[in-house]
């Protein structure tokens, strides 16, 4: 059930969801900066957003002919989007977190998140003024 209001919001809602997900991945990277053998993960935002808008995400539906068949679900719809980061500087303990890269990405992502919220607020305000009977 998608009405006009939902359609207007859908793009920003999807973008906001993805930004929140990316924020979580980046905070995991920062938290594990000193964990041996931890591999840093990130998403390709453009590709992820295109995929999410076209509903091309999540696991492929499996044909289940019996009630006991597994659905092949993943815990979160974005799970399949996360990819390991390329190593800029290899470290002896196998950790691939580059603190500068992660912190810069984290700050940038936070700004984008706030920008999305500003867009949503603007959208709501213009809809409200369109609905006023003046």
């Amino acid at each position, binding site marked *: 059930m998608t009405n006009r209001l939902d359609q207007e919001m859908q793009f920003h809602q999807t973008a906001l969801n993805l930004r*929140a*997900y990316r924020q979580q991945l980046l*905070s*995991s990277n920062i*938290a594990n900066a*000193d964990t041996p053998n931890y591999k840093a993960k990130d998403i390709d935002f453009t590709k992820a957003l295109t995929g999410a808008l076209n509903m091309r995400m999540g696991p492929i539906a499996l044909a289940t002919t019996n009630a006991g068949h597994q659905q092949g679900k993943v*815990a979160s719809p974005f799970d399949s989007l996360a990819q390991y980061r390329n190593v800029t500087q290899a470290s002896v303990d196998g950790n691939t977190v580059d603190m500068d890269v992660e912190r810069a990405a984290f700050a940038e992502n936070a700004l984008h998140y706030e920008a999305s919220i500003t867009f949503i607020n603007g959208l709501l305000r213009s809809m409200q003024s369109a609905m006023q009977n003046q």
Partner: protein
Amino acid sequence: MSMLNVFKIAGSALNAQSVRMNTTASNMANVDSVVGPDGESYKAKQVVFAAKPIGGTADSIGVQVKEVVDSAAPMRMVYEPANPAANADGYVEMPNVNVVEEMTNMISASRSYQANAEVMNTARTLIQRTLSIGQ
């Protein structure tokens, strides 16, 4: 709600880094302890970190202290015949604490702690903004 998971992730990191800081403090404090509580001289302790999934999902990964191990470095032997703890050859077994290593460990732990505290602050701001949508 992935933004609330950020709190848990950064929180687990703060916890782990403060354990590391405590261990460093113990090592530094005991750099000259000849006799520990078990009658032997103090051995330097090191923490081992491990990644830990939070909230049942594979993508929110926090950090935990897996174990605290005794350092395998050789003990520091100091020639001090007058010391009551000296062995037959006049050597006293001192802790294997490497002060330079501990200092760098401490700085690294405090920087990581700061970074994660910042992550928490940012997440808080973002959640607040999200809650004020449409107001």
